[in-house]
């Protein structure tokens, strides 16, 4: 109001507005600089199941490094963000074959895994995934993994659907739910139709996979935007079958749903193996190892398992879980069988992504 009170003209008022906008614009880079005053904050681009708040708090207290998570949804998102903003992040989480891609494109830096004392707690197989090796260095710190399999409600699904093709049966019309991740759904269709490399199919294989999806579409209730929607659909009975990660049966039960059984498709399946990578442009690379070494300790990983219910690579945490009486659950979720992670087709960038998304859209669009 005071502006009006001074009795300026309308023209002046608008000019002042313009100048104000200009000023704001000019001041912007200065603002941006201010935010980086703290020296021991590690910006971590990750998924929300990779950390717990009390874990980060405790780590900050003990070693003075505060992890600050920023969350993303798809590997492609995170890749773009790291590529564009580089030094704004210090750690980025990534799936299986995305890790070598980050590395090849010069976005992350490999490190000496054996120099981290905490790495002794890992299953030995996790320390030697061939696709993460860079000479004597390793491209990421192994965290968790899961296969994607078929979960079904035995009340409605009387014969165990132990193959992808069983899901094409007309009696399941509008009763199957899965996550809407085009590349991964195509990779599942690739396994169903026998393609050799599910993430880099040939044109002929893509066309076969597309035909499979076309036949599959009438049975799909919804392509969920979030994993929890698959859980919800199974819990309230709107879906009879879900194609989803390990641990879904527990989550359906927690959500007040029915008993859900699992079936492992005989054509094989896909899954993820994820890791924490060191961002190359990060200004805090010196404390990366210290931070990982404290954050990834077995007690935290055991707790993470109890919250998120899928296998992790920390063997010491497995032993702790057994001692605490959670052995059965951990065993059911394959915690002690990390070698199974290498049986599945692991997630990665597609060789010809465009053809994948095109085929996916063509099969599942209206």
């Amino acid at each position, binding site marked *: 109001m005071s502006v009006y009170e001074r009795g300026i003209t309308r023209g002046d008022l608008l000019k002042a507005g313009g100048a104000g906008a200009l000023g704001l614009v000019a001041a912007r880079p200065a603002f941006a600089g201010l935010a980086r005053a703290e020296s021991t904050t590690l910006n971590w681009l990750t998924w929300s199941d990779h950390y717990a708040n009390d874990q980060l708090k405790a780590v900050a207290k003990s070693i003075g490094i505060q992890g600050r998570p920023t969350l993303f949804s798809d590997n492609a998102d995170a*890749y773009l963000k790291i590529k564009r903003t580089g030094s704004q992040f210090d750690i980025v989480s990534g799936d299986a074959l995305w890790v070598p891609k980050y590395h090849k494109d010069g976005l992350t830096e490999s490190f000496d895994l054996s120099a981290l004392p905490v790495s002794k707690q890992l299953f030995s197989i996790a320390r030697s995934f061939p696709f993460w090796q860079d000479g004597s260095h390793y491209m990421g710190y192994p965290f968790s993994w899961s296969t994607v399999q078929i979960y079904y409600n035995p009340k409605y699904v009387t014969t165990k659907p132990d193959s992808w093709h069983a899901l094409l049966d007309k009696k399941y019309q509008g009763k199957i739910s899965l996550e*809407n991740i085009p*590349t991964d759904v195509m990779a599942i269709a690739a396994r169903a139709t026998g393609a050799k490399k599910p993430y880099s199919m040939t044109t002929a294989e893509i066309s076969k996979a597309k035909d499979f999806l076309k036949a599959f579409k009438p049975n799909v209730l919804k392509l969920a935007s979030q994993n929890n929607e698959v859980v919800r659909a199974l*819990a309230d*009975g709107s879906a009879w079958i879900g194609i989803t990660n390990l641990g879904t049966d527990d989550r359906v039960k927690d959500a007040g749903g029915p008993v859900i059984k699992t079936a492992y498709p005989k054509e094989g399946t896909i899954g993820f193996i994820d890791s924490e990578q060191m961002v190359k442009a990060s200004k805090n690379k010196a404390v990366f190892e210290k931070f990982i070494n404290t954050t990834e300790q077995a007690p935290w990983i055991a707790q993470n398992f109890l919250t998120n219910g899928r296998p992790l690579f920390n063997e010491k945490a497995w032993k702790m879980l057994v001692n605490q009486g959670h052995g059965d659950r951990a065993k059911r979720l394959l915690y002690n069988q990390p070698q199974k992670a290498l049986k599945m087709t692991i997630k990665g960038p597609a060789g010809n992504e465009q053809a994948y998304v095109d085929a996916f*859209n063509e099969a*599942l*669009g209206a």
Partner: protein
Amino acid sequence: MGARRFAVGEYLGFAPALILYGAFFAVPLSIVVAYSFWKVRDYNVVHEWTIDNYRYFFSVPTYVRTMWATVWVAVLSTALTIAVAFPFAYWLVRHVPRRLQRTLLVLVILPFWTSYLLRVYSWLNILGPSGAINRFLQWTHVTSSPVSFFLYDRPAVVLVLVYLYFPFAALTLYASLERFDWDQFKAAMDLGARPATAMRKILLPQIRPGITTAVIFVFIPILGEYLAPQLVGGTRGIMIGNLIVNFFSGAEYTRGAAASLLIAALIVVLLVVFRRSLEIKDPYASGR
């Protein structure tokens, strides 16, 4: 000479908008246009010119079909939204004491200060097989087993879209109706016009810009919706926005840019065709 000074001031209002749009919209828009003519290779946009992204959109019937389905859903949802909002705004302006009006208006928008995602999830809890409606029906013994409502199909999408965009229409219509001089309306009635006639001949022509603006605010964003159809529409409720989002989640920015620009082009054509309805027949034009 008074008119001369006014002429300069006339355009000054554009200055801030020019800065904002010039720097932060025109340039990005050109980037988008350029993208639509480029290619993506190995998750990176490469500057190789092609019209393949556009050709592809028209070469596969899925996209055009989904596009029409989307337009149809948007038209229906917009019509319903306006139909629900108009009587409401009218009630607010005519039958509510003035000092209460703004509070009631803010109440309309209040649910929207929570979270889009959670509000749509809530509809799953209302419409689902174990949702509120089914629970109520079973509790009152109207039905014994869950009734499959229209969840996971187009009707659910339309319902939720009306819910999501109602406040936009209500606010716009309110701002427009509130300005209307009701004495004219009364005068027309005094001269023997029936309420319906007075409404059509006096009210509607004058609030037309408001209605058109409301239509724009509802129709255009709905064309780009992807979360609501995905959450409550299921496979049968897919809209063009979902296909575009699929492009982006696969880093196919060039395909996505082309498809988005085609939708924008469709809207621009519609706006050009209907631009007259944005203008109002100036009742005071004679004095100018």
